[in-house]
């Protein structure tokens, strides 16, 4: 019987028919999606922290308004995604708990510090650029609520990347100090961004199943190569360079070759030993705990209003 269900399920996926929350699905599919979507949601929420760092210090009002809007978008993206994950049967509180206890991961990129204003530019161009590369195929995810959430996310994400590029472009055309600041930010954010696509294909055991279930449409290495190809061209417009001596156009493959990735660094950050892992988690937990009285007050107020209404009705 189980077998039949599984066949019907795979048949739907193969025909590009979306799976909806109430449809039968393999338990592993459900668990994989819960992990992936909640991890994605956590990344949006934690992703606000490195940028929030610069809201009060944005160089002018225009930049400040833009950065505020961007950070607000990230909060929105987190909420779309948490809701999508909840349709699979996990509660919001469970997900928060997994984040706050360190059980759930979020994208390692947010464990790097934002040292200068140029970092906001580099994050927009590289980090959001890599995120978009990952996210566009997710709009065709086999799971309906995830796909629909991603359509909204992708629509909004494009401004994030453009504003980042604009920041770097402005700096690169500025004084020597500003140029250096831009180059330094690109130097620091490039490799972590390249790592954002995750482990190499032959070390990514879940890829095969995720591709079969159409949770994933491209492999990590395919997306990474696409990202490198695009950035290698875009960096020329900035008049900056990418910190990779092995970066070179390869006419035979029609792609850019690039240098070796420091996977030790990648796994160290994943394991919690990145420069800001502890700080991010502490900030996030503090925000949640400090907000407790607001949530309690809102509940109390709603209760009071409900009682008032009941008295009036009686």
């Amino acid at each position, binding site marked *: 019987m189980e077998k039949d269900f599984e066949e019907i399920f795979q048949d739907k996926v193969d025909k590009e028919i979306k799976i*909806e929350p109430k449809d039968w699905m393999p338990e592993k599919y459900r668990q994989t999606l819960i992990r992936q979507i909640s991890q994605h949601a956590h990344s949006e929420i934690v992703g606000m922290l490195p940028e929030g760092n610069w809201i009060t210090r944005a160089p002018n009002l225009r930049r400040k308004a833009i950065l505020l809007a961007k950070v607000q978008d990230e909060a*929105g993206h987190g909420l779309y995604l948490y809701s999508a994950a*909840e349709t699979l*049967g996990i509660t919001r509180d469970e997900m928060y708990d997994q984040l706050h206890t360190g059980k759930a991961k979020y994208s390692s990129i947010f464990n790097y510090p934002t040292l200068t204003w140029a970092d906001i530019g580099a994050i927009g161009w590289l980090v959001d650029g890599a995120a978009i590369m990952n996210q566009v195929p997710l709009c065709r995810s086999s799971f309906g609520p995830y796909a629909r959430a991603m359509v909204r996310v992708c629509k*909004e994400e494009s401004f994030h990347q453009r504003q980042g590029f604009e920041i770097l472009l402005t700096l690169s055309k500025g004084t020597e100090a500003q140029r250096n600041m831009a180059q330094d930010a690109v130097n620091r954010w490039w490799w972590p961004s390249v790592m954002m696509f995750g482990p190499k294909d032959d070390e990514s055991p879940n890829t095969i199943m995720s591709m079969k279930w159409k949770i994933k449409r491209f492999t990590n290495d395919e997306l990474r190569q696409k990202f490198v190809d695009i950035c290698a061209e875009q960096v020329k417009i900035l008049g900056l360079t990418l910190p990779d001596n092995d970066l070179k156009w390869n006419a035979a493959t029609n792609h850019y070759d690039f240098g070796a990735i420091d996977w030790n660094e990648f796994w160290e950050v994943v394991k919690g030993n990145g420069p800001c892992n502890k700080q991010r988690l502490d900030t996030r937990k503090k925000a949640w705990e400090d907000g407790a009285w607001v949530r309690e007050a*809102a509940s109390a107020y709603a209760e009071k209003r409900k009682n008032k209404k009941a008295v009036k009705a009686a």
Partner: protein
Amino acid sequence: MTTNEHINSGEWPLWEIFIRSRQGLDHKHVGSLHAVDAQMAIENARDVYTRRMEGVSIWVVESKHIHASNPADAEAFYDPANDKAYRHPTFYNLPDELKHM
């Protein structure tokens, strides 16, 4: 929309959000969010789902009030319409010279 109800947790109830994107169009489901009551759900929906002028009107419905058909019944439920092609105008073979119909 979720399949489970968070009955005993301290979580705020879940609300389904419907947005009318332009006057004259119908409200369309866009997603869900948690809120203590309807008013807060509408205010939060404004922030979460209409940051770029996506809407001119918002409906919120507490998720527990939504009742859905069962996907497992889909065959029995929708198939009876399969063999009734005569309900569609293209079913009828009429002469080409017939105009305005």
